[in-house]
Every structure is written in structure tokens, then in C-alpha cells.
């Protein structure tokens, strides 16, 4: 299979841009800072005891969540910036029309643009693996945790990139596309709480009755959190660091119906990944049909 020409082009161009190098510098610097602060917090003396005291060593486990959470935040903020110019950028540069007269299909434009953004971001992510690895070599976390972490980050990157490319296909300008993608990400991360919150309040208000159907409502409202990356990573840290679910477990303990299937935490993560990929695919489809000139009544 040939590599998507858009990925090649975008990577060639960005690799020559000052912005990308400076971005990398800033990113590495920031992670470095988090790393140093984490070292400091862990214990001034751990460095000296490290080789002697295995109890001190295990404290280095905390290095992994500290650095990786910082990294996730950066990644989550960077992708919309990178991918939101996918279509608008080509239009602003007046290269889009020529692109659309060639034999490339709208879906290839979408995957190419997502691909180049994801590759750029994964370069950032992979560059930070050695820093995180401190938590593994010293703290004794098993290697698959790192691998799964990378896979989940990739899923987050795919989700956000598809949202950004969709926004870019819908909006006229890169700035509005960037804002729109942040908004959609915010809706997914922030507003998926709402059903659960409302169900819980409702359930609480009528707690005297405590009927099965009310509790079922709360359980179902919980499912709205499946597409939420925050909860996916919460469960991931729970499973990998403390051996079990953090969030869903509390609901299981409440005795809510059906929640026990999520007891181990792993099913939640798997379902979350599947749903996020489905949502991404939906955004990709929408974006592709939006940029197809032969589609719809669009005049521009």
C-alpha cells in the first residue's frame, strides 16, 4: 500500500517549518519541568536511597502518571491546533481547488490530514517515552502498561483529529475551525457528565422510593461517559496502577444494576475505545461528504 500523498506532503512541509521545531522544544521543555518537579516532590532523598531501598524505589511509580497526564493534556490541546487547518488551511492558501480536481478522494484527504497530524503528535509522544520509562525501570510497572498507554493516546489522537478535520471541513477559517474543535472536545469531555449528574440528582431527590427503574436510569446515564477520554484514562490508571477500576467500581459498590460487568475496569476501557473509534469514523464520514464538491448544495 502506498503512503497517502497528503501525509508525505504535510510532513515534508512541517519538518521544514520553524514552528514545528520550536513546538518540539517547548514540549520537551515542559515535560522536563514536570519531570523535575515530580522528582522533587517524590523525595529529596530518594535519589540517594534509590539503589539501596526498594521501598523508596516503588515511589517512582508516581513518575508515570505525573508525566503521562501532563503529556495527555498537551496532546489534547495540540491536535486541534494541528488538524483544524486541514481543509481551511488549503482553502486559505488557495490550493484546495487544485487538490479536488485531482484523483484523490475526499476520504483520502480526510485520512491524510488526520494521519499527518497524528504522526506529528505521536512523534512528540514517543520522544517522551524515555522520561516516562523512569517510572517503569525504577518503579516496577510492567511494560504492557506503557504499550497500552501509547495505544490509548493514539485513540485519543484519532478522536481529536477526526473532530478537528470535521470542523475544518465545516468552517470557513482555521481560527473558527480550531475553536469549534475545542468546543466539540469540550462537549465530549464535559457534557457527558450531565446525564449522570441529572440522574443522580433525580435519584437522590426520590431516594425514598429507591425503585429499580431509577437505579437503572443512573446506570444507563453512566454509559454516556463511555466516549469521554477522561474516564477512559481514569480507568486505565486505576487498572494499571492500583489493580482495578477507580470510577466504575464506586458505582458497582453502590449496587447499581448491570454495573458489575465493568467491575474489573478493563471492559470499560475496551468499550470506550470502540465507541471513540466509531465516533471518529462518523466525523470522518461527515467531513468527507462535506468537502466533496459533488455533494450537496454548497455554493462555495
Amino acid at each position: 500500500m502506498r503512503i497517502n500523498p497528503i501525509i508525505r506532503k504535510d510532513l515534508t512541509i512541517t519538518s521544514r517549518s520553524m514552528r514545528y521545531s520550536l513546538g518540539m522544544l517547548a514540549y520537551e521543555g515542559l515535560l522536563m519541568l514536570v519531570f523535575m518537579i515530580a522528582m522533587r516532590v517524590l523525595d529529596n532523598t530518594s535519589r540517594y536511597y534509590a539503589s539501596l531501598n526498594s521501598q523508596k524505589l516503588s515511589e517512582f511509580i508516581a513518575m508515570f502518571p505525573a508525566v503521562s497526564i501532563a503529556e495527555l493534556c498537551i496532546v489534547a490541546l495540540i491536535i486541534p491546533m494541528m488538524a483544524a487547518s486541514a481543509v481551511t488551511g488549503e482553502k486559505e492558501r488557495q490550493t484546495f481547488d487544485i487538490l479536488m480536481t485531482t484523483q484523490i478522494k475526499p476520504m483520502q484527504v480526510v485520512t491524510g490530514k488526520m494521519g499527518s497530524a497524528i504522526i506529528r503528535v505521536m512523534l512528540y509522544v514517543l520522544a517522551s517515552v524515555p522520561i516516562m520509562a523512569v517510572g517503569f525501570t525504577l518503579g516496577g510497572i510492567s511494560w504492557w502498561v506503557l504499550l497500552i498507554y501509547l495505544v490509548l493516546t493514539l485513540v485519543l489522537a484519532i478522536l481529536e483529529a477526526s473532530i478537528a478535520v470535521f470542523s475544518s471541513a465545516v468552517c470557513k477559517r482555521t481560527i473558527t475551525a480550531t475553536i469549534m474543535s475545542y468546543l466539540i472536545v469540550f462537549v465530549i469531555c464535559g457534557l457527558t457528565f450531565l446525564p449522570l449528574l441529572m440522574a443522580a440528582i433525580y435519584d437522590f431527590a426520590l431516594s425514598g422510593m429507591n425503585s429499580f427503574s431509577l437505579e437503572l436510569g443512573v446506570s444507563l446515564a453512566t454509559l454516556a461517559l463511555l466516549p469521554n477520554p477522561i474516564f477512559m484514562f481514569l480507568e486505565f490508571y486505576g487498572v494499571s496502577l492500583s489493580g482495578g477500576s477507580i470510577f466504575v467500581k464506586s458505582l458497582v459498590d453502590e449496587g447499581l444494576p448491570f454495573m458489575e460487568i465493568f467491575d474489573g475496569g478493563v471492559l470499560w476501557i475496551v468499550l470506550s475505545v470502540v465507541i471513540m473509534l466509531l465516533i471518529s469514523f462518523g466525523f470522518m464520514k461527515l467531513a468527507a461528504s462535506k468537502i466533496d464538491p459533488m455533494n450537496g448544495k454548497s455554493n462555495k
Partner: protein
Amino acid sequence: MLYIEHLNKWYGNHQAVKDLSLHIPKGDLFGFVGPNGAGKTTTLRIVCGLLKESSGQVVIDQMSRKKDPEKIKRCIGYVPDFFGVYDNFKVWEYMEFYGSLYGINATDCRKLTEDLLALVNLSEKRDEYVDSLSRGMKQRLCVARALLHDPALLVLDEPSSGLDPRARIEMKELLMNLRGMGKTIIISSHILSELSEMCTSIGIMNQGKLVAIGKIEDILHAGAVDDVVILEIRKDMERAVTIIKQMANVDLISVMENEIKIKYPGEDAELNRILIELMQQDVMLHGFHRQEGNLEQMFMQLTGSEEEAS
């Protein structure tokens, strides 16, 4: 080669193209002329599949966009009126990128790039950054790019607008070259004189309508500018005028000191009859000539004189 059939395009409730039909045979260099806002760009964008028509259809080599959307793309090379290039991208990379969008493999593409850059006279710019090229060079590069997949039809929208005179001439030479190579070319312009020298036929568009189409001579003929004859008369002006006024089918356009401008319909035999009549009545006819066919004038007449023509 290219058939446009009853094409209409509405932008909201403004109709930019009105029932446009035309046929461009293979090997033609067709000029699409009209004042700004006539609907040329809209028509060309529909031909290239960048805009969906409101009704009507475009057929190229018996293929319509509905039935063979992919094949039809391969038939067309498009040079837009306004286009940009990527920053930080070299000329050969530019060519290779578009080559790969047509699925041309890297080795073939390298060879093609060499040939096409030579054709558009940019061989020595191969390793330079595209955005460092001059406007005329970018335009020629864009033509080379549009030729990568060897399209049967080349569509150029106002290729010489914004170019200096020298770049214009180079562009024109390039187009003549391509015409010699047997490409079918459509080129639009709002300047008629630019096209009249190189095009095999032209279509004049105004306010979304095609007001005239055909070979340049035919258009002139149809516009009847051809049928105006100027008679030079030394003596007997008044008598000549009365004779002509009496003749059926002949219009007297103007009378000057020793020239009469007349318009007659149709054949040369008719003109003979007029001349014989005058001579038989002893009018001293010193000479006569046809009014020069003036395309600009024709163009102004067809597109309404309030529009700017150049």
C-alpha cells in the same frame, strides 16, 4: 470532445449561468470571453467538477460526471484563476506530490517532471522553493502540473491576468505549443484581443448567457459588420444618395464628404448589383472597400457597452 448541455447554475436566487450549451471539438483552442462576472469561472469550475451544476450536464469524451466521476477527472487539467502554492516545498516535490495524487509512480513522475519543466521552461528551477518563483513562473508551473496526468482537456481560467507583458507572451507561446501538440484547450479571458490571435474559436459570454460562438470570422459575419461597404465617390454625391435610397434591401448608414457607408444583406452578388446600378446611372465611383471587421466593436456590441471590455 467536450459537450456542455443546457447548463444552469444558481447561486441562491442569482443565476450565474443561463442555459449554456456548447461543443468544443478535439484539438480546438477555445477562447471563453466575457466581462467580469459573466459566469466564465462558474462554467469552468462546473466543467472541472469543483461546483455542482443546478441543471444540465457536462460530457467529455462520452463520459458524464454522474457515470464516470473518476475517469472524467483524469481527462481534465485545471489551472484556476487564483491559486496558491505550498510554502517550504520545492518545485520537483510539488510536481511529485500532484503526480502521486494521480497515482503516477515515482520513477515515471521524475521523468515526466523533467519533460514538463523543460516544456514550460522551468528546468533550472527544479530545486528551488515554489513560493520563491515569480508569478509568471508559478503560472507556468501550474500548467506543467495540470499536464502531469496527460489530460485530453486543459482548462485555464484567465491564465494571463496579473502577468507582466513578457510573462504574457511566454504564456501565449506555451499555449500555442500545447495546441500544436493536439491538446484541446479552453482558456478564459476578459480581454478579447488576447484570445483572438491564438484561438481557433471563441464563445462570448455575457451575464450568464452565451451570446455568440464559433470561429472568429463566423462571429464577425454573423454580427454583419462584414456587410458594411464604404463607397468612395468623387462627384455626383447627391445623385448617388438618391439612387441608393431608392434601392430595396440597402441601408444607408452615413454620408460623408466623398464616402457613403452602406449596409446590404447577404451575398456578394447583391453588392455587384448595387455597384452596376450606380455605374449605369453615371455615378463616378472611384472605389469601394469593406469595413474592417472589428472584433472589439463586435464584442462591445454583444456584451453591452457599459461593461468594461479590457
